[in-house]
């Protein structure tokens, strides 16, 4: 791995220098600056390496709704649970999804009641389970942003067995940015955009966003020096009164993105207006499986209607945490009643949930 220089990517000497550049830029700008990132992996880097603690307090970094597990509506989990209660079904999903509280139960609790709920590493494992269990219905509960969508699209395209189907709870990032920028009083000066989403969709959708809303944006990688560099690039734009999308993560992200993955997404899914847990319905904020692949759409196959669901349990402030309005420690249940062992809201469950990250590193 030497060629990739993981060690250099984390070099503290580099961090210190970039921080000095950040301090200088901030003093030139001479006001408080608020930067939002929208990716659980970025929050992980920021918290793990204590990036907030080495930055001047005039620079605030807030965490947006960057955790697909957290923004997955309770109604979708309820749907998976209703299907999982039926005979001869196997529910498969990513590990993070299992313990997320939905309206009444989590998938982990359903499993404790005897249902067949399995964690898979990727959608190909779910297809494999379907092949091994031809007499059962195998449902993959698909969550994730643009990074994850092509994986599921690929499996759907290569003719999986007909006892395989997908609950499609995928969400799209650019539409969420538009919603966030419109939130009153949030006053975001710039965005750090998720490098792995951009590796698929390219930088153009982000460029359109920064053009339309006149907000600086930097697509960034996930090493601590990537994040610091992105902050410096944003401050430089702010100082020069620019608002463009820059690419800090050039070793992975191309402006045009990954065309193969984009074609798979376009072939299999349609963008739809979609509810985000704690945030509300976002126009073009999610995906649905196209009619031409409806035989793999669990929604069509099982026809389950969830009449009433509860996204935010009483006392939980996930909706405020996910829109950067409060920090987790401002929620009165944080660490007292709500812990990773006994999570009240989705943000405390996933390794990428803001509350769980603050619990671990805060």
């Amino acid at each position, binding site marked *: *791995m030497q*060629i*990739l*220089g993981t060690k*250099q*990517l984390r*070099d503290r*000497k*580099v961090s210190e*220098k*970039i921080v*000095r*550049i950040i301090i*200088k*830029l901030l003093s030139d700008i001479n006001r408080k600056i608020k930067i939002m990132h929208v*990716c*659980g*992996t970025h929050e992980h880097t920021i918290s793990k390496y204590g990036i907030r603690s080495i930055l001047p307090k005039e620079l605030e970094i807030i965490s947006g709704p960057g*955790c*697909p*597990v957290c923004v997955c509506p309770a109604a979708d989990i309820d749907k998976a649970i209703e299907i999982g209660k039926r005979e001869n079904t196997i529910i498969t999903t*990513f590990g*993070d999804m299992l313990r997320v509280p939905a309206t009444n139960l989590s998938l982990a609790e359903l499993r404790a009641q005897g249902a067949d709920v399995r964690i898979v*590493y*990727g*959608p*190909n*494992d779910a297809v494999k389970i379907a092949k091994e269990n031809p007499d059962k219905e195998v449902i993959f509960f698909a*969550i*994730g*942003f643009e*990074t*994850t969508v*092509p*994986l599921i699209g*690929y499996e759907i395209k290569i003719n999986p067995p007909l006892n395989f189907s997908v609950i499609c709870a995928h969400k799209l990032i650019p539409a969420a940015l538009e919603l966030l920028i419109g939130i009153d009083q949030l006053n975001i000066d710039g965005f750090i955009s*998720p490098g*792995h*989403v951009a*590796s*698929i969709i390219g930088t153009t959708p982000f460029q359109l966003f920064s053009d339309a809303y006149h907000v600086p944006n930097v697509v960034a990688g996930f090493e601590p*020096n990537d994040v610091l*560099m992105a902050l*410096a*690039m944003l401050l*430089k734009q702010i100082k020069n009164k620019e608002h463009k999308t820059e690419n800090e993560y*050039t*070793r*992975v*992200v*191309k402006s045009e993105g*990954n*065309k*193969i*993955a984009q074609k*798979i997404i376009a072939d299999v899914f349609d963008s739809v207006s979609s509810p985000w847990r704690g945030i509300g319905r976002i126009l073009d904020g999610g995906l649905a499986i196209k009619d031409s692949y409806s035989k793999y759409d669990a929604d069509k196959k099982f026809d389950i209607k969830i009449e009433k669901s509860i996204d935010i349990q009483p006392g939980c402030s996930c909706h405020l945490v996910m829109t950067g309005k409060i920090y987790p420690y401002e929620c009165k249940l944080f660490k007292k009643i709500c812990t990773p062992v006994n999570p009240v809201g989705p943000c405390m469950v*996933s390794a*990428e949930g803001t509350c769980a990250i603050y619990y671990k590193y805060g």
Partner: protein
Amino acid sequence: MCLAIPGKILEVNGDKANVDFNGVKRDVIIALVKDAKVGKYVLVHAGYAIELINEEEAQETLKLWKNIVEEEGLDESLFF
């Protein structure tokens, strides 16, 4: 969730490749990327390569950061 880790391709077998992640070897699906050849680095998410890593760009980034460290002054315009 969008976590993706870099690894080096050791062997290609149709739509799959054997990839070395710092000593741990795993099979990954490479159907989503073009030109996944032996010796190249890929970024892998949930068992699928989602993009190749551009080694020249990686070196450029490291070079830029090295310059930042070695540059005594703090004229940030030098670096962007």
